[in-house]
């Protein structure tokens, strides 16, 4: 396949098609609507299921139903829509079936706006739906990576019978850049032995998230945690840049990580020993990598397009061994490389608040609302 100039949303949609997507259910919401629009013609022309649902609530429950048949299914949405899907995501998790969701994150809270944001980190990585469950969350920083992660999302979801969420942001969804789509995979024909598909000549099957006896629900929860342990042991992914001799370690994911990389390169050109850790799996989080870096680095600088949601995880896993600093833009604002470079330069002069609250320290020096 040749490299083409592709828009992120279209690229993710077509990547899903080529990964063998059998059914899509979604609802229009900016900035991900192009996924739905692309699939509205692409899926029917391939004889596959596409349906514009009446709401995100319905869409996720359609995904739930279709996933129970063992088919490869997905939905896509953006932050407020994903909030509505949390009920269904919890049910899917509790039923231990695979499903894929693309969340093209926008500014919030509330209706917010349609600009790029990373404000869904907490709702996706740490929560959302009720009960103990952990989705796999993948964060792309380019159109190419978005394509690759969408394909991988289906394989991971089926391998672990879990929800896998590709958490992009509005800029990944909307921007165009050269990328290569994967070859078309055939639709899988084998059905898992748990599929509720109305097949003849076997005992009936059922799928449910209800375990009315707490003893059985505890067993289910334990099984979910065992699966989560296996995911943590096998599926952590990240990219490292200039970390070998880095005294300052920037940690950022997705678009914030990509912009931070530009800043890191500029700082390196100035002779500042700085590197970047870019988590690709936000869940499972690269905890051991952060922990190791905390032993060698002099300062960790977390950069996000939110008010410091991943910051808490970096603080947790760096265990107070090293000062952690924070820089964020919120509400749909995207940082310029110069802003992050200025932060790297400031940190290079010595941490301002070695043991204080990095978020409060950032707020003191931060002027919201400026371009």
């Amino acid at each position: 396949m040749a490299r083409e100039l592709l828009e992120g949303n279209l690229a993710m949609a077509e990547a899903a098609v080529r990964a063998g997507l059998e059914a899509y259910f979604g609802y229009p919401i900016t900035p991900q609507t192009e996924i739905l629009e692309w699939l509205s013609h692409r899926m029917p022309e391939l004889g596959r299921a596409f349906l514009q649902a009446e709401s995100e609530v319905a869409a996720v429950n359609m995904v739930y139903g279709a996933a129970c048949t063992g088919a490869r299914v997905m939905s896509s949405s953006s932050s407020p829509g994903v909030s509505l899907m949390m009920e269904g995501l919890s049910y899917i998790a509790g039923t231990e079936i695979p499903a894929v969701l693309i969340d093209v994150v926008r500014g919030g809270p509330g209706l917010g706006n349609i600009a790029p944001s990373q404000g869904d980190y907490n709702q996706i990585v740490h929560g959302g739906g009720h009960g103990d469950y952990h989705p796999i969350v993948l964060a792309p920083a380019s159109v190419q990576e978005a394509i690759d992660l969408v394909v991988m999302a289906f394989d991971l979801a089926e391998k672990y019978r879990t929800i896998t969420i590709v958490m992009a942001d509005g800029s990944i969804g909307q921007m165009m850049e050269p990328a290569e789509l994967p070859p078309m995979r055939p639709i899988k024909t084998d059905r898992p032995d748990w599929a509720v598909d109305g097949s003849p000549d076997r005992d009936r099957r059922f799928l449910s998230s209800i375990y009315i006896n707490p003893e059985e629900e505890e067993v289910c929860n334990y099984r979910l945690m065992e699966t989560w342990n296996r995911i943590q042991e096998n599926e952590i992914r990240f990219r490292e840049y200039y970390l070998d001799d880095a005294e300052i370690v920037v940690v950022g994911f997705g678009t914030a990580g990509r912009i931070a990389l530009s800043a890191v390169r500029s700082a390196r050109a100035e002779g500042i020993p700085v590197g970047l850790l870019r988590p690709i799996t936000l869940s499972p989080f690269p905890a051991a990598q952060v922990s190791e870096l905390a032993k060698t680095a002099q300062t960790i600088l977390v950069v996000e397009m939110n008010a410091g949601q991943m910051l808490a995880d970096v603080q947790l896993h760096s265990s107070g061994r090293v000062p952690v600093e924070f820089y964020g833009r919120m509400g749909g604002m995207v940082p310029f490389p110069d802003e992050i470079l200025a932060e790297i330069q400031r940190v290079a002069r010595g941490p301002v608040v070695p043991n204080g609250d990095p978020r409060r320290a950032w707020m003191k020096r931060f002027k919201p609302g400026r371009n």
Partner: protein
Amino acid sequence: MATALTSQVVYERPESLADTPTTYCPGCTHGVAHRLVAEVLDEMNLRESAIGVAPVGCSVFAYNFFNVDFVQAAHGRAPAMATGIKRVLPDRTVFTYQGDGDLASIGMSEIMHVGMRGENITVIFINNAIYGMTGGQMAPTTLPGQKTSSSPNGRDVEQTGYPARMAEVLSTLDGSGYVVRRSLHDPKNIRLAKKAIRMAFKTLQRGRGFSMVELLSTCPTNWGFTPTQALEWLVEHMIPAYPLGDYKVNPALAGLKL
């Protein structure tokens, strides 16, 4: 010379019904509704292609009681879940089994949209005018003046509005192929209910759109009646408020031999 004894089976468990005791209260009509659905699935040879969707409510455990493939939905979302199944397996007999709180309150949006889309699924709708599983609270179908644990002085329509007549509402949708209301209060009506369930699955089989059989049902436990009193209350109070009848029958189905 011994006389040969002949015997004839006059009553047996339908194959589509699991050999599992139900968890329903004595006198509740859920058991009758289950049996009717199971008999129809058997008689139409649909058991092996059937996929049921259980709701949240008293029939949340329906998947235990039917000997067919089943999933269990979030509260009110059974029609959406059934849609997902039907769209990837269009040749299967996908049906939901829902109560009034599930279908007409929290799931109002989902049921309206399967009707609007003409989704080829069958909905068995149990209307007993109360929330059973949570212990007898006011439902969207609770009658004006009816006492429940959350309308202790009787449903006050000034405060809580009016009951929803779902068969009538859904009959207005172009996607609806077959929408009727029946009652489970006596043998004659039970036979009529079974014919309607049969017709609903015929509608599905022939791809004539959304089909729903609303079944007026009793909840002796939460109504505070004996089973017999409950049946009488249904006749006296529910049928006048929820008239039995055919609200939408696609012309292609009219005159269909059952």
